[in-house]
Structure formats: structure tokens, C-alpha cells
């Protein structure tokens, strides 16, 4: 393994400090308190409760906020215990956690981009560090913490040698940690891995072996790390039922919000001979043709992405390497939120799309700059 000297450590420290400072300034000087309700009240409370429950062997505490996995909330409790004596409130500690993991994600964007060249790494880092969505929603602790582990998992996958299982296993375990922070990480990272293997023309058997390895190792860690999935004999109640009951809040109400872009079909078919049919038919448009997150309104990264696409289409250049992989990573996240999170899409989900967009855009800018210099 390559050794990192003092200068290297200092360089990485700077790469961490700059995005952390921006996020910290936003979270503590500009963002209203509370900013994301009820999350900012709920997660530190739940985290502390989980720690007390684990210490006393009372697993019923995991019924609180059971719709979300516990790891990020446990980390919040850790931050609360560490920073409480320094005068930070519970919300303050949660925000420091968000800023910390968001800044680490910027560092990862640098590391992923550096696989092509240091210039691309630096530009990816700059783009993500200054991205308004990533700064504003650094306080979304669950998503930001999960995104860090998910990005680390993708980084491992990109580094993994085709013939070695070790990094795939490690990537799966890190994906398990990401899933223990937020369940969305699982389909997004697995989707990205599947698309990257498909795009890389990996033969079916090795590709399915790698996907299974990552999926299985992350699932094992998810089950081991979330007491709700432990046997009822061990925790004294059916944790899975508690999880299902808590998750049932995320349903389709009588208002007719579509869960997937194809769910407009059901009310149309049910009401085909009534005057409501036309109204339900109109849900086709609302449900399937618009993106649930206003990504273009709040960040420059999607605009850079669009400009890169126009440039690519004009030149008819084949997309390869890290840029192609980051585009597939972006697609996995983008389509996941379009397909499955439509009814419950919160604006801060956009943070999931920013790291691949930053890497893709950095690659495109460097490519355009090289072409212009010739």
C-alpha cells in the first residue's frame, strides 16, 4: 500500500477542512433552528434512547422511529455525548455530524476523481464542496451519513480488481453500513454496480457473482446491525412487524399520489366508465413525466451535467471510463427516486445525486478544456 507522508496528511486535512468550514458556517450561522423538522428533534432523541436501550438490554426502544435504520442515529448520539460538554445542543451535535460526513464525501469525490488524474479529483472536490444543495442539506444527517458510506462503497467497487473478491466483500460491508443509516443506499449502490458491470461488458457469471457478493455481505451486516431484524426470541417482540407498522406511514393516501410512475394505470382502469376517468388519466402526466426533486432550481451541477450532454452529443464522442461510470451511478440514484420515492420525495434527497454529478461534470470540463487547448 502507498504510504502517505506528512504533506499528504496535511493536504487531505485541508481537503476536509474547507468543505467542513463552509457547511459549518451555513449550519450554525445561516440555517434557521430547527431547519428540518421533526428530524432534527427526533434523531438525537432516538439515538440517545437506543444507547440507553442497548446498555440496559431493552430492545423495545428500537420501535421508536423504526422506519429508519439505527446507525446514523447512534452516531448522532455519539456526537451528542462528545460535543454536549463543549456547549453544543442536540441539534448542534446533529449538524456537526452532518457537516463532518458531508465534508468526508467531498474528500471521497476527490479520491474517486483522482483515479483519472489529480486535476479531475480537485475539480470534483471543488464542485461538490461549493455545491449549494450539499451545503444546504448537510444537516440532513441520515442521508448525508448514508451517502458517505454509499460513496465509499462505490469507491471500493471502482478500485476492485476483477479477479479479487476482497474489495467486493469490503464494498458490500460498507454498503451494509450505508444501509444501516438509510435503506435507500441499498438499491442505489446495487443499481449502480449492476449498471457499471453491464456497461463494462463483464460476462454474466462473474458479474452476477460480484453483485451477489456485495448484496449478501451488506444484507448480513444490515441484519446483524439492526435489532429490529433479530429473532423475536432474542429481543422479546417481533421487530419486523414493528418495522412494517412504522413504514406503513409511507403509503399512498386517498389523495391519489402515485407511488411509481406506472400507478396512474390503476385508478384509470378502476374508473374507466365514470366521469373521473379523465381526471385519473391526467395523473399519467403528473405521475410519470415529471421529476419529483427540483434539482435544477437549487444547484449548478445539473446544469453542468446538461451542458456536458450537449457537448457530448455535438461531438458524438463515446463516453468511457470514470465519466461513464459516474453517469451510470447518477442514473441509478436518479431513477430510484423517480420510480420509488415519488410519493415521499423530500428536497434533501437531492444530496444523493450530487457526488456522481460533480465527478461527471469535472470530467466533462477537463475534457472540454483539453479540446479547447488543442
Amino acid at each position, binding site marked *: 500500500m502507498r504510504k502517505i507522508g506528512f504533506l499528504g496528511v496535511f493536504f487531505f486535512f485541508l481537503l476536509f477542512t474547507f468543505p467542513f468550514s463552509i457547511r459549518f458556517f451555513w449550519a450554525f450561522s445561516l440555517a434557521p433552528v430547527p431547519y428540518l423538522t421533526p428530524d432534527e428533534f427526533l434523531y438525537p432523541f432516538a439515538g440517545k434512547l437506543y444507547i440507553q436501550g442497548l446498555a440496559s438490554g431493552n430492545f423495545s426502544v428500537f420501535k421508536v422511529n423504526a422506519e429508519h435504520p439505527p446507525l446514523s442515529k447512534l452516531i448522532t448520539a455519539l456526537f451528542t455525548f462528545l460535543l454536549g460538554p463543549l456547549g453544543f445542543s442536540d441539534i448542534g451535535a446533529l449538524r456537526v455530524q452532518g457537516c463532518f460526513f458531508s465534508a468526508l464525501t467531498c474528500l471521497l469525490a476527490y479520491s474517486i476523481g483522482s483515479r483519472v488524474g489529480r486535476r479531475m479529483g480537485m475539480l470534483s472536490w471543488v464542485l461538490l464542496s461549493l455545491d449549494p444543495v450539499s451545503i444546504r442539506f448537510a444537516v440532513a444527517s441520515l442521508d448525508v451519513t448514508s451517502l458517505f458510506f454509499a460513496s465509499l462503497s462505490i469507491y471500493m467497487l471502482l478500485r476492485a480488481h476483477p479477479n479479487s473478491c476482497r474489495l467486493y466483500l469490503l464494498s458490500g460491508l460498507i454498503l451494509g453500513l450505508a444501509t444501516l443509516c438509510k435503506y435507500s443506499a441499498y438499491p442505489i449502490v446495487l443499481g449502480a454496480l449492476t449498471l457499471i458491470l*453491464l456497461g463494462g461488458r463483464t460476462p454474466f457469471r462473474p458479474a452476477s457473482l460480484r453483485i451477489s457478493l456485495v448484496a449478501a455481505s451488506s444484507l448480513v451486516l444490515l441484519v446483524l446491525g439492526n435489532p429490529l431484524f433479530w429473532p423475536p426470541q432474542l429481543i422479546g417482540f417481533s421487530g419486523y412487524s414493528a418495522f412494517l407498522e412504522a413504514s406503513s406511514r*409511507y403509503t*399512498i393516501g386517498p389523495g391519489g399520489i402515485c407511488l*411509481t410512475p406506472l400507478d396512474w*394505470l390503476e385508478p384509470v382502469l378502476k374508473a374507466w366508465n365514470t366521469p373521473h376517468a379523465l381526471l385519473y388519466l391526467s395523473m399519467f402526466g403528473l405521475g410519470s413525466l*415529471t421529476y419529483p426533486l*427540483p434539482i*435544477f432550481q437549487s444547484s449548478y451541477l445539473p446544469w453542468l451535467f446538461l451542458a456536458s*450532454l450537449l457537448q457530448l452529443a455535438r461531438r458524438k464522442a463515446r463516453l468511457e471510463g470514470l465519466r461513464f461510470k459516474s453517469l451510470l451511478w447518477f442514473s441509478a440514484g436518479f431513477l430510484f427516486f423517480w420510480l420509488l420515492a415519488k410519493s415521499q420525495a423530500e428536497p434533501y434527497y437531492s444530496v444523493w445525486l450530487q457526488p456522481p454529478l460533480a465527478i461527471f461534470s469535472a470530467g466533462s470540463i477537463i475534457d472540454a478544456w483539453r479540446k479547447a487547448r488543442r
Partner: protein
Amino acid sequence: MEESETIVSAIALPALLLSVLAAARLMGISKRTASIFMTLNATIGLAIFSALTTIPQLSIQALNTLNPEEVVVIMPLIFTFELLSGTYFASRILELDYLRFLKLTLAALSLTLAISVPLCLLVLLFKP
């Protein structure tokens, strides 16, 4: 989640996947190319329209305030726009034949509707 809506999702999403693979096979296109193409097609088409919704007249709020008759007229236009732009950019990026892959997209979508509508009707008809 309501049971009937779960049923529609459970039918329509696999139907879309199978339709893409079937249409690709019929057209002699590899499954990998078809899968990657359809993924990029959907992503880029949606992303381009999402960018257009920053124009006030095309904003989500403006679209939501249209009456159903107007929506039924406008939405197919948006759908066509997303389809054509997504297909164009995805085929350029992947260096594929635009018209051939437009045919693939249309065939896959038609096949999805042909499979899922009768199935959903049947399921909803016999559902208590």
C-alpha cells in the same frame, strides 16, 4: 401501500423490464446495450424536462394547476419530447443508431402497455 397499487407496480415494472429485453431480442440488439440505453434514455429525457420546468410557464406548479382536459393534451407532448430527447442523447453518447433505438423504445413501451393493461384489468376485476 394499498394492495391494488402494489399489484399494478408488481405487474407494470417487471413488464417494462421484460418488454425491453424481448424487444431487444426481436431487433437483434444485445440485452446489455438495450438495458444501458433504456436507463440513460429515461434519465436524460427526465433530466432535460426537469431543466425545462425551471421556466415559469412549464413549472410543476403551473402544470399542476392545469385542468384535466388540458393535461391530457399537454402530457403526451411532454412524453414525446422526453422520449425523443432521451433517445437522441443516449444514442449519441453510446454511439448507436438513433432511429433503430427509437424503434426499440417505442416497441418496449407498446409491449409494456400490451402486457400490463390486460393483466391489471384481470387482477382488478377479480380482486374482492
